């Protein structure tokens, strides 16, 4: 894995433990599922939410998934720019620990973009993900893939970004779609690539559908990573079917598109896709006009819905 531009902010857990005495008054905010493991190694007092950090704090250590880290990033930027923020992702995928982007999910997705959102340090602590459910780990892999693939295809990508994204995808194509510590660094790298270019229609689907599915099917455990995994293969095939652009880029930058196709196909879940498309059909105009969809490498038109309806039926390239 090549070092990315935020590598100097990267710590391992030993680095954080040894730095604790220099961070002033520190507080810890963790996702419940990993709280006992984090508290076993880190001593700062626990707080309930990023927003409840006491006024005497110098440092907030936030350990959890992308949603919690994004909340802390936005809180720090809007309310307390001097607060030292250290992000400890509990799973790979979002890459938010290195990203200038934060997404808050309310009635719809609220996207923030600023370099001031980037945490001061992030901690790679792979053991936190070891006990995560296999399904979540698999979706997290799909999240990384969607960032890398959409950065590669982005109309805003430079040649350098495309080369780095192609190299990254060629490397992660050999990773298992499950626990592997290397996914953490791959996730950070993929996130930075998309932050310097754009995402596309996979994220258009995910951003519009996530709040809708969370409210209409709360037990189905819809989340960003699951939606990205679900729409990876359909959107890749849509892009390939409309223009030779992606194929040409793959040839130019040495991306093994057959391997990418194989991975995205193995991440595809027809049942989940059918369920998501039921909602997507009703909100197609919103999806097609979403800001992410508008930077898709292929223009998303009103009649593009037909492709995705057919993909749902055939389960293969239409």
């Amino acid at each position: 894995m090549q070092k990315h531009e935020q590598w100097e902010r990267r710590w391992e857990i030993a680095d954080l433990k040894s730095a604790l005495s220099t961070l002033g008054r520190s507080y810890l905010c963790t996702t419940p599922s990993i709280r006992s493991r984090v508290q076993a190694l880190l001593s700062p007092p626990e707080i309930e939410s990023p927003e409840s950090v006491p006024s005497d704090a110098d440092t907030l250590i936030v350990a959890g998934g992308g949603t919690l880290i994004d909340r802390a990033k936005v809180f720090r930027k809007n309310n307390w720019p001097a607060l030292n923020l250290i992000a400890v992702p509990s799973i790979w995928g979002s890459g938010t620990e290195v990203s200038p982007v934060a997404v808050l999910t309310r009635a719809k997705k609220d996207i923030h973009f600023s370099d001031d959102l980037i945490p001061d340090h992030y901690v790679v602590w792979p053991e936190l993900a070891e006990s995560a459910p296999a399904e979540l780990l698999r979706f997290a892999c799909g999240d990384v893939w969607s960032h890398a693939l959409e950065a590669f295809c982005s109309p805003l990508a430079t040649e350098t970004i495309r080369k780095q994204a192609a190299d990254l995808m060629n490397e992660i194509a050999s990773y298992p779609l499950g626990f592997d510590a290397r996914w953490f660094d791959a996730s950070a790298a993929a996130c930075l690539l998309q932050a310097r270019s754009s995402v596309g229609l996979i994220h258009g689907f995910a951003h519009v559908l996530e709040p809708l599915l969370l409210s209409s099917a709360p037990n189905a455990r819809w989340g960003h990573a699951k939606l990205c995994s679900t729409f990876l293969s359909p959107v890749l095939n849509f892009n390939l079917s409309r223009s030779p652009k992606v194929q040409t880029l793959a040839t130019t930058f040495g991306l093994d598109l057959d391997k990418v196709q194989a991975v995205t196909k193995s991440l595809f879940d027809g049942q989940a896709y059918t369920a998501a498309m039921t909602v997507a059909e009703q909100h197609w105009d919103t999806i097609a006009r979403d800001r992410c969809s508008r930077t898709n490498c292929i223009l998303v038109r009103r009649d593009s819905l037909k492709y995705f309806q057919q993909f749902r039926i055939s389960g293969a390239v239409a």
Partner: protein
Amino acid sequence: MENRQKLRDLLMEVLLLTDEEFSFDLKRERVETWDSLAVVAIAAGIDETFGYHFTPDEAVGINGVRDIITILEREGIRFAEA
């Protein structure tokens, strides 16, 4: 379909314009939906429809429909008098 019609369809689709709102003399400043994201979408659509990829300078320098036609005609893509 002739190139004029293809361009008209593309811009109406991207910029969410009605028949009445579209004209070949349309300026970017007069279209609320012609924002920076629309510039990207138009570039993607031009590539898909006409096989020409705007350079970054061309993309940001487009101030209206006529500018798009001028660039495409320079690349040998012919438009009947609009």
